[in-house]
C-alpha cells in the first residue's frame, strides 16, 4: 500500500479553498455548541468565539489570511444577498415602522452624534494618535461604509474595518446589561439600538436572540445609520478640529 507523503497532502489541502471553508463551518458549529453548553451567555458570542478559534488555528498552522479567505470568501459573499434580504422583515413590519418613523429618525441622529462624539472625546483624552482617532470615528457603521468614510476623513481604511468588527462584538456582549439597566423591554427598541451601535453583528444578534421584529428594526437602523453617518461624520470631525 502506498501513502501519499503527509507533507504533500498538507501542501495540497492548504492550497485549496476546501479546507478553510470546511474549517469555518465546523468551528462555527463548535462555537454555537460551546455557547449553548454555557447557557447562551452573551460574553462568549458564537461569532467572537469562532473568530478567536480560527485566528488561533491559522497562527498555529502558519496560514496567512489571504489564503484562508480564498475558501472563506464563499461564505463572505453571502453577506451581500443577506443584506438585501433584510427588506423582507422590514416589509413584514412596515406598518409599525411607518408609525414610528419620526421617533426612529430622531433616535438615529442622537445615536450617531453620541457614538462619534464619545468616541473622539474619549480617544483624544486617552491620547490616541490622530490616525487611530480618525479610523475610530466611523466604527459604528457597517465596515464597507466605514472604510469609505475613514479614507475620506484621513484615517486608515483597513484599521477602521478591524475596529468596526471589534465594536460589533463588544456591542453584542454589552447589550443585555445595558437593556436590563435601562429597563428597555420593547424588542423594536432593542433591535434598533443594536443595529445602530453594533451594525451587522448587532442585527445578527437581534435576529438570533430577540426575534424577527428586533431583526427588522435592527436592519433598518443599520441602513439608516450608514446613510446618515456618511453625511454627518465629516462635519462632526471638523467640529473636533480634526482632518480637513
Amino acid at each position: 500500500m502506498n501513502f501519499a507523503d503527509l507533507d504533500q497532502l498538507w501542501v495540497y489541502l492548504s492550497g485549496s479553498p476546501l479546507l478553510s471553508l470546511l474549517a469555518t463551518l465546523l468551528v462555527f458549529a463548535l462555537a454555537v455548541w460551546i455557547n449553548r453548553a454555557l447557557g447562551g451567555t452573551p460574553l462568549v458570542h458564537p461569532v467572537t468565539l469562532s473568530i478567536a478559534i480560527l485566528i488561533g488555528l491559522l497562527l498555529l498552522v502558519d496560514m496567512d489570511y489571504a489564503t484562508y479567505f480564498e475558501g472563506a470568501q464563499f461564505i463572505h459573499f453571502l453577506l451581500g444577498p443577506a443584506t438585501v434580504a433584510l427588506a423582507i422583515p422590514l416589509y413584514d413590519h412596515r406598518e409599525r415602522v411607518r408609525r414610528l418613523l419620526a421617533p426612529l429618525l430622531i433616535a438615529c441622529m442622537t445615536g450617531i452624534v453620541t457614538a462619534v462624539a464619545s468616541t473622539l472625546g474619549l480617544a483624544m483624552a486617552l491620547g490616541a494618535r490622530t490616525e487611530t482617532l480618525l479610523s475610530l470615528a466611523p466604527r459604528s457603521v457597517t465596515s464597507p461604509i466605514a472604510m469609505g468614510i475613514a479614507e475620506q476623513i484621513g484615517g486608515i481604511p483597513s484599521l477602521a474595518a478591524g475596529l468596526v468588527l471589534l465594536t460589533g462584538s463588544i456591542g453584542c456582549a454589552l447589550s443585555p446589561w445595558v437593556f436590563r439597566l435601562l429597563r428597555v423591554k420593547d424588542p423594536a427598541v432593542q433591535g434598533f439600538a443594536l443595529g445602530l451601535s453594533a451594525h451587522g453583528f448587532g442585527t445578527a444578534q437581534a435576529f438570533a436572540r430577540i426575534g424577527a421584529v428586533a431583526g427588522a428594526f435592527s436592519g433598518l437602523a443599520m441602513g439608516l445609520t450608514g446613510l446618515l453617518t456618511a453625511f454627518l461624520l465629516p462635519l462632526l470631525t471638523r467640529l473636533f478640529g480634526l482632518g480637513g
Partner: protein
Amino acid sequence: MPLIMGMSVLLICQFLGELLARGLMLPVPGPVFGMVILLAGLMIRGKVPESLRLTGEGLLRYLTLLFVPAGVGLMVHFQLIGQDLWPILITLVLSTALTLGVTAWVLDRLNRRRSRQ
C-alpha cells in the same frame, strides 16, 4: 426551483444597488441600496413571494455565520491595534455602551409618549 428564483431576485437587487452606488459615487455599499430597491419592489407588489421568503429567511437565520470570515481579518490588524491598544479598548467599550444606552433610552421615551397620546 424556489431557491434559485429567490436567490436570483436577491442578486438582481444587489446588482442594481451596486450600479447605483458606483454610478452616483456614494460611499454606501451596494447591498444597502439593494435592500431599499427590494423594499420598494415588495411595496409595489403588495406581498412577499414564497420563493423569496424561503431564501431570504434562510440566509438571515445564519447571518451571524456570514460575519466570521471578515472577523478573522482582525488578525491582519493586530499590529496597528497593538500600538494604541488601551485607548482603543477603553474607548470602544465605554462609547459602545453609551451609544446603546442613549439610543435605546431616547427611542423608548419617544415611543411611550406617543402611545400615551
